């Protein structure tokens, strides 16, 4: 099943190699993150279903009698209960931006390539230990959902969906739809009942009102926001007069990049935008990882998850 309105972007480089040792290291980090909040910090359904012992303690009224540990009770002469680390299959939700603005990159690869790579790495890690994987892509004409499933098939489906590319640029200038991210987050919030891991991969461009849904999501799930940027988006080079088109809206802006005032204003505005973004993410309680199209994104991902 291919999606309409998406195509492999021109100049696609691919995410680059995903070396197994690096992925392995990333695995541990992700697992630690996703496991740690579950036992204590959140009341999780199905407590005590697991194999790993956390503690033996004297029975108290109200404890489940099925958890009585016969050996410990016999040894001490007092009823003891055995508590386990609750181990469940972890569901990982990948929310990936496939809007036209992702098809941009001036360094080693496109932003879409980095998003592709992050999606693949997370997908490969997610299906280990019986984990389940789901993906929602937004930014194209219609959001596309791959419902939670496990095994290698899930990774293959995610890979195929990511391979289809990103949304093509609009033919005609159009009004931007600045709510797609917020709608995607709300949708995941409704679907993901059990606590899981949510990985949001986007450039946070031309989006409004996503802060509240993201905060709500991060209350129930361990949430990571991966922001993909390009060095050229931070500051303009002095290359003369330039007619630039916004890939999302198709609107054309003419600027003279030789004017230092304009370049300075642009850099300041972008710095402000990113500062506000980091602030919003911190307030939402979301881990913020910044990946650039220049350099080794996989190392940066690992460093960010530490």
């Amino acid at each position, binding site marked *: 099943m291919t999606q309409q309105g998406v195509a492999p972007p021109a100049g696609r480089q691919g995410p680059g190699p995903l070396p197994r040792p690096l992925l392995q290291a990333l695995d541990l980090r992700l697992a630690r993150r996703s496991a740690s909040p579950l036992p204590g910090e959140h009341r999780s359904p199905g407590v005590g279903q697991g194999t790993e012992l956390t503690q033996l303690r004297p029975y108290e009224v109200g404890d489940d009698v099925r958890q009585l540990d016969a050996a410990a009770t016999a040894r001490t002469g007092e009823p003891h209960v055995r508590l386990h680390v609750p181990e469940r299959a972890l569901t990982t939700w990948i929310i990936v931006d496939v809007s036209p*603005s992702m*098809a*941009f990159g001036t360094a080693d690869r496109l*932003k879409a390539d980095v998003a592709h790579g992050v999606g693949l790495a997370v997908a490969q890690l997610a299906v280990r230990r019986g984990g389940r994987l789901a993906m929602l892509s937004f930014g194209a004409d219609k959001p596309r959902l791959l419902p939670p499933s496990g095994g290698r098939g899930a990774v293959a489906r995610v890979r195929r969906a990511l391979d289809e590319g990103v949304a093509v*640029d609009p033919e005609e200038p159009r009004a*931007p739809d600045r709510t797609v991210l917020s709608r995607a987050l709300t949708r995941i919030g409704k679907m993901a009942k059990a606590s899981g891991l949510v990985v949001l991969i986007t*450039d946070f*461009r*031309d989006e409004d009102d996503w802060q509240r849904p993201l905060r709500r999501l991060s209350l129930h799930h361990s949430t990571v926001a991966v922001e993909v940027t*390009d060095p*050229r*988006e931070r500051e303009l080079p002095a*290359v*003369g*007069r*330039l*007619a*630039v*088109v*916004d*890939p*999302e*809206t198709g*609107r*054309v*802006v*003419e*600027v*003279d*990049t*030789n004017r230092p005032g*304009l370049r300075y*204003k*642009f850099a300041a*505005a*972008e710095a402000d*935008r990113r500062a506000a973004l980091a602030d919003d993410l911190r307030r939402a309680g979301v881990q913020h990882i910044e990946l650039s199209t220049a350099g080794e994104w996989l190392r940066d991902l690992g460093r960010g998850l530490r």
Partner: protein
Amino acid sequence: MSFTAPLALLALLLIPLLIAAVWWRQKRPRRDVVRFPAASTLQSIVASEPRWPRYIAPALLGLAILALTLSFAKPERTVTVADRQASVMLVTDASGSMAATDVEPSRLEAVRTAANDFLEKVPEDLRVGAMSFAQTPLATTRPTTDRDAVRDLVDDTIANGGTGTGDALEVAIRAVRPKGEKDKDKPAAIVLLSDGRTTSGKNPAIVAQKAKQLRVPVYTVSLGTPEGTVPGNGAPFPVPPDPETMKRVAQVSGGKFYNVTDSSRLSEIYTRLGRQIGSHEEQRDMSVVFAAAGLLALLAALALAARRSPALP
């Protein structure tokens, strides 16, 4: 301002074409655009800056087209040029009837004021002479650029005696066209003011023929109301003006006739004559001014275009 070759103004149609070109350039879908996700940030920066600087160059170009087109149309300006060596005689009646007070404050007084206004208005290098007459010509100042001599004569005039308009006119003609002077192209004119019937000497209408021959227009002013009187022996003596004769003199000699019954009107007419006489209107070619302005605007537009950064790609 007038144009010698107004057909060249058709080139002004280029200006709407220029405006259309600028408009079309902004509307047309761009091919040479660069995709840039941060375009919305740029948009907000550009929107916060004024738009007019981008229209300076097209506006200068339009201005250049306008000015150059106008210069092709050979614009001409009407200028008033003082006649060199022109001479004017102010011939003023000084007969007894000028003492009449039907014109405020008196006829003679009104003429003095008006003559001084006239002297104020005439071009500086115009030679002005003055003369007063009764039965016979009295004081005469030959045409000169010395205004004080004329002013003195006008101020010293006393109303007394009869009216010898014809003789006075003849003397005045001689004053502006001395005998033996062959050059009839030197502009000359006479302003003749009289307030009554000619009582002695030649018929002014016949003298006017001579003025016509010598190409001296006589501007005549008939001053006073029909009810004007001067104190006589016992009963007031009526001194009505004689506009008919004056009109004839003006017609014959090629001048103009004015009938005046109050002093402000008299001043007005003298002022107007002061502006007219001794100068004529000329058409001056102004193409150079417009061509220079057009070139300047063109150069400025070029300089702006050269300063503008080159476009990518």
